[in-house]
C-alpha cells in the first residue's frame, strides 16, 4: 500500500506516516528566518521596478526559488543535514544584521539566498544552485558592467534556469504518492 512519502532516489522507501512527512517539512523558525531576510531585502522590489538593468529580476528569483518551494512537496531526509542547515540559516541572520548595520543591500541579498539554501539543502548539488542566486541580484548588473540592459534579461533568466534545473533534475526528486 502506498503511503505517499518519498525520499531521494536510493531504491528504499522510508515508510510513510504523515507525522514523518510533517517533520521533514521546514519548521516555523526556518520560515521566520526566511521572512526576516526577505524583509531585509525589500529594496529588491524597487530595483526591479525602477532600474532598467534589473528588469525581470523578480522572475529570476521566482524560478530560482523553486527548489525551496519543492521542499514542501518533496521533503528530503532533512535530519541528517540539520547542522548544516542551521549553519546556513545562522549565516543568513548574520548577513541580515551586518547588512542592516553597514547599510549594504548586497549583503542582505546574500542573506536571503543563504536562508533559502538552508530550506532547500540537498547535498553538494545545492552549491551551484546557491551561486546561481546572483541571477536575481542587482549585483549581477554591477558586475556585468559592459553588458547592455537588454542583454541582462536573458542572462538573468538563463542563469536562474540553469541553476534551478541543475538542482531539481540532479537531485532526482520524486513526487509524493508514486511508487
Amino acid at each position, binding site marked *: 500500500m502506498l503511503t505517499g512519502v518519498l525520499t531521494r532516489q536510493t531504491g528504499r522507501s522510508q515508510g510513510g506516516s504523515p507525522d514523518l512527512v510533517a517533520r521533514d517539512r521546514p519548521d516555523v523558525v*526556518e520560515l*521566520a528566518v526566511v521572512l526576516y531576510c526577505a524583509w531585509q531585502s525589500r529594496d529588491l522590489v524597487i530595483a526591479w521596478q525602477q532600474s532598467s*538593468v534589473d528588469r525581470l529580476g523578480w522572475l529570476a528569483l521566482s524560478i530560482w526559488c523553486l527548489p525551496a518551494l519543492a521542499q514542501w512537496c518533496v521533503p528530503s531526509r532533512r535530519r541528517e543535514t540539520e547542522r548544516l542547515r542551521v549553519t546556513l540559516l*545562522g549565516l543568513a*541572520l548574520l548577513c541580515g544584521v551586518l547588512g542592516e548595520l553597514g*547599510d549594504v543591500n548586497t549583503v542582505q541579498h546574500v542573506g536571503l539566498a543563504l536562508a533559502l539554501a538552508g530550506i532547500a539543502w540537498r547535498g553538494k548539488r545545492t552549491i551551484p544552485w546557491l551561486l546561481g542566486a546572483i541571477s536575481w541580484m542587482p549585483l549581477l*548588473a554591477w558586475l556585468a558592467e559592459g553588458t547592455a540592459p537588454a542583454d541582462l534579461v536573458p542572462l538573468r533568466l538563463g542563469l536562474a534556469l540553469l541553476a534551478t534545473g541543475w538542482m531539481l533534475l540532479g537531485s532526482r526528486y520524486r513526487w509524493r504518492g508514486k511508487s
Partner: protein
Amino acid sequence: MNRSSQKLLWGGLLLAIVLGTTWRFFPLPDAGDVLDSLPKHGPGFASSEVPLTPQEDAHLGNAHVLRRIYQVARQRVILTIVDGSRNRHAVHDPLYCYRGAGWEVIGRRPMKIDDDTVELLKLKKQDRQREVLFWYSDGRSRYTSAPRYWWETTLRRLTFGRSGREPVLVVVEQFGTDSINWHRMLRQFTALRDV
C-alpha cells in the same frame, strides 16, 4: 529540527531584530557642512539652485543633496553633491545609475584634480549625448571606486563614525548641449576643488 536548534535560531532571529532596531537610535554625524560650505557665487562663477523632482525626492529620501547650475566663465554645468549619511542607498555608482536610467557609456577617461584621479564619462541615450565628471570625496582624497565608497561608509557605520567623515558623491554634468572644456572649468571653479 531538534529543539536546541530551534531555540538557537529563534534566539538569533530575536537578536538580529533587536540589533537592527536599536541601531537606528545612533544616528551618525553627516557631511552637511561640506554641502553648506560650497559657495553659490565667487570670482568667475555664479549659480542658481535646481529643485529636485518629486521622483528624485522620493528616491533620495533623507539624503542631503545639493544641486545647482553653475556658470563658470562662459561654461555651464550642473553640479550635484549627495551626502548619503542618512540614506546611503541614495548614492549609487554613477556607472550603474546612468545605465539603469537608460544611458549607454560610450567613453571613459581619467582626469586629475591635484593628485587625485576623477573620471569623465561620455554617455549616449538615443540621439542625445552627455559628458559627466564624477568622484567620491571623503575630505582626505578623491576617488572613483564604488567598492571603496561602500567600504568606507560601511566601516564608518560599524565604528559609529570614528573611521572618518562620510564620503560624498560629486557629479558634474554638462548643461544642455554645450560642450565643456573640463580642464579649464576645473581651473576656474576653484571652490569645487575644495570638495
